[in-house]
């Protein structure tokens, strides 16, 4: 039987930039191939090239590009149009922007029906309703008449899938279908896709997160630098990666590792490979001259394109044993994180957040309670994680802790003195001792400032006088966060995401603070960069003894960093305690749901959850 889709030697270039190079794979009906890679790896371009939408200025070449017997390389635009939507469906990430926000959900779903004349106009409404019901959207009639912004993230993504499968395509390409979603919703969408696959639709799944897609995919293709560096059955790739990059990728996932383990390989700069060499060579510990000049031949459907494959080596995944001891049962009413296990028990808390609440007035005049009676305590040297889905109030807690937002009720104390409810003037002298690292580091840098000025401003605040002294101190701080002094002269806008986060960290450390509040510091980063930053945070904590208030939606990340943890939902802390206890024996249903949804292992579909409020 010929495969549904055959790709052989696909090349996509934008001017001089070769985004995709020599990519080959096949896909059968009812099969799922996951293409995994970090941003810039060429995975999305590959997916879009398959529907003839590689983008403006792109040049697509291929040895073979065949879909169901059609030679795609010879298609002209009208024929492409006949294929798109009808035979091949495309689902992009973030349904809020992938569905036209100015049109109703129904109109969007009906569009492929109209374009391809699948259904007569009179029956389209019915068909749309059926499709919505089919992808698990309750009240389909109502939903069809609504606009995307009126739907929750999960429902939106379902609607987007409904529009992609409306005309009954044989192949569904899903480009990061779950990236923007909370973990629990993420799982549901993956299940929906899995069901479609089982019903016979071929599925090409694009993702940056190997652990998420591996459980769904029959086969996995790992891309790096525009090339497929390893392909193989999902479980095999996950458990016994052969390519060093795949291995590094897996190592970087905190959920797969013991807490506190190093996630990233030491960053030793190596020379870049030549044009035809291995794109990973400059990051690969095993790279030699051969790697830099040429790639080995592809050996088959289950192989790594590598001169030095890690044959048969187990990933150093340590299975987690359940701990049933010492868990703290938490009532909704008074969720306290006890002082503790991480820091010295005797040490007085540096930062005390005591039953704070905060509400915001919405545009319609109604008050939205972002934070309700939240209490946290942070001792010197301790790391406390706050985890919760978007909208759970974590960021507001962070801002209250930083003294940027006054709480409506409750109070905050820092270093034993009142921190909330006092004039800003009074806080000012203590401010250098509690610093912050934001999710969007670029936004936290004055756009006119070079790195030197960004860090220099904080250095000056720490009392360092004289330009030369400040420069030296700034360079020292950069070195501390693993950046060369050459970065000083650059603007943050010219740096990569990881570098920016390092600069933010350097600035936060400049005043030798006792506490650093990190608000989603790694959620915008690729998994391997995320690993480096998490390792760096661990190092800094160890070296300086700084206490961390670490906020993230990612359970695994929080677990990796924190001593203690607080789980937030709808503005409340629903469970808290030492990290091991919460993870091993979650007492609150919500925590359990979070944990199971975030499970990296192929697992049975989770029990249906109650919706958790607006995304």
């Amino acid at each position, binding site marked *: 039987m010929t495969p549904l889709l055959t790709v052989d030697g696909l090349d996509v270039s934008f001017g001089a930039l070769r985004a995709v190079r020599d990519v080959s794979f096949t896909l059968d009906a009812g099969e799922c191939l996951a293409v995994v890679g970090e941003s810039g790896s060429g995975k999305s371009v590959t997916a879009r090239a398959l529907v003839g939408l590689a983008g403006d200025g792109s040049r697509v070449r291929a040895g073979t590009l065949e879909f169901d017997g059609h030679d795609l390389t010879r298609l002209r635009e009208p024929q492409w149009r006949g294929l798109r939507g009808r035979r091949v469906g495309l689902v992009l990430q973030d349904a809020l922007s*992938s569905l036209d926000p*100015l049109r109703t959900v129904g109109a969007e779903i009906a569009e492929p029906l109209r374009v391809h004349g699948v259904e007569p106009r009179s029956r389209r409404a019915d068909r749309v309703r059926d499709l919505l019901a089919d992808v698990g959207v309750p009240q389909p009639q109502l939903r069809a008449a609504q606009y995307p912004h009126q739907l929750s993230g999960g429902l939106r993504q379902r609607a987007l899938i409904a529009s992609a499968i409306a005309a009954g395509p044989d192949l569904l390409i899903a480009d990061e279908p779950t990236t923007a979603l909370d973990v629990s919703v993420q799982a549901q969408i993956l299940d929906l896709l899995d069901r479609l696959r089982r019903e016979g639709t071929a599925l090409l799944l694009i993702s940056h997160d190997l652990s998420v897609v591996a459980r769904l995919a029959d086969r996995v293709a790992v891309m790096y630098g525009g090339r497929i560096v390893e392909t193989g059955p999902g479980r095999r790739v996950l458990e016994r990666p052969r390519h060093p990059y795949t291995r590094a990728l897996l190592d970087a996932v905190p959920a797969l590792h013991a807490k506190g383990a190093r996630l990233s390989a030491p960053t030793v700069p190596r020379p870049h490979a030549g044009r035809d060499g291995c794109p990973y060579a400059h990051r690969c510990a095993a790279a030699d001259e051969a790697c830099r000049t040429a790639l080995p031949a592809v050996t088959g459907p289950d192989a790594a394109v590598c001169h030095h494959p890690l044959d048969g080596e187990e990933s150093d995944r340590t299975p987690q044993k359940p701990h049933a001891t010492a868990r703290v049962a938490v009532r909704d009413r008074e969720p306290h994180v006890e002082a503790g296990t991480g820091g010295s028990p005797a040490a007085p808390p540096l930062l005390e957040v005591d039953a704070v609440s905060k509400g915001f007035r919405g545009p319609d005049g109604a008050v939205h309670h972002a934070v309700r009676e939240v209490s946290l305590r942070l001792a010197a040297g301790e790391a406390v994680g706050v985890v919760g889905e978007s909208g759970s109030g974590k960021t507001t807690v962070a801002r209250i802790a930083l003294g940027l937002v006054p709480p409506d009720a409750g109070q905050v104390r820092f270093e034993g003195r009142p921190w909330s409810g006092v004039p800003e003037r009074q806080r000012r002298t203590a401010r250098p001792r509690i610093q912050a690292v934001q999710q969007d580091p670029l936004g936290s840098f004055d756009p006119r400032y070079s790195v030197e000025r960004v860090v220099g401003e904080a250095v000056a605040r720490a009392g360092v006088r004289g330009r030369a002294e400040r420069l030296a101190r700034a360079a020292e701080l950069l070195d501390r966060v693993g950046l060369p002094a050459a970065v000083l002269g650059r603007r943050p806008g010219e740096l990569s995401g990881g570098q920016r986060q390092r600069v933010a960290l350097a600035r936060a450390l400049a005043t030798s603070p006792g506490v650093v509040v990190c608000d989603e510091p790694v959620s915008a980063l690729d998994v391997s960069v995320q690993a480096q930053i998490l390792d760096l945070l661990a190092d800094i904590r160890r070296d300086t003894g700084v206490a961390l208030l670490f906020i993230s939606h990612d359970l695994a990340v929080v677990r990796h960093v924190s001593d203690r943890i607080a789980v937030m939902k709808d503005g409340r802390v629903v469970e808290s305690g030492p990290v091991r206890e919460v993870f091993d024996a979650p007492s609150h249903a919500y925590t359990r749901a979070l944990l199971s949804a975030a499970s990296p292992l192929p697992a049975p579909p989770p029990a249906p959850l109650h919706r958790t409020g607006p995304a």
Partner: protein
Amino acid sequence: MKATHLLQAVARRVAAAAAVLLGAATVAFAALQLIPGDPVTTMLGPFSSATPEVRDRIRAQYGLGEPVGQQYLHYLGHLLRGDLGQSYQVQRPVGSLIGDQLGPTAQLALAALALALLLALVSAVATAGRRPVLRGAASLLELLTVSSPSYWTGILLLTAFSFHWQLFPVAGAQNGTSLVLPALTLALPMTGVLAQVLREGLETALHEPFAVTARSRGLSSTAVRLRHALRHAALPLVTLTGWLAGSLLGGAVLVETVFGRPGIGALILQATTNKDMPLVIGLVLLSALVFVVLSTLVDLLYLVIDPRLRTDQVTP
């Protein structure tokens, strides 16, 4: 949106409109007080042989002898009754003077607006996201129209099409053909700005994921532009068009001068150069009113175009 909210919104809008109008009236009144020289002299012109008694009578007739505060209150009182007063220069009610000239200017402005939108639409839809050469050429052309003063464009058009080729009548507001050149003159600089905003809007929209999604459903590139992108690009366009439409009144000053057309623009120029303040105030109020009406229209159009503004609730 609930009925009470709607009512509140309407009330807010009306109050804001009233505030702008009151403010405009006050600014105009303040300007009147700042004008140097005796208003009566201004009124009579430099070569009047009016006796001091006559001047006093005129001063009394216009209430110019009263204290400023009292004048202001009187003036507001008259405004509330819809009385804009008498023109100094022409000795006719300001309302009827303006009313007489409104027609030709409204014609000119609407024609220019329609023309500008049409040209911008064609230019932007045809060139958005196309080859850089095409796009660059269109862009340069638009920049050129934006950079050409209307009073010069008008002269060029007049010379070429009326004097030289005699394709269009030279002047007046007699019929449709006489509207072509002035409308084009007024439209051209607008076209440039509109086309640029529209193109940027289209290109932004075309690079949004939903446009890619739409293409992936089998829509042609043109269909995506017209069915999806245009609506998105229309949002900034509506704001800009509203703003530009308000400034058309100003543009009419120069265009009507060049083409010798009657209208509000010509009236504005006359009123300000003659310092015919009651007339100036009337025109200021008219402009403010046009602005208020336009911004209301813009807001309504926004509501029509963008459903996100109609409801802000996620209904789970």
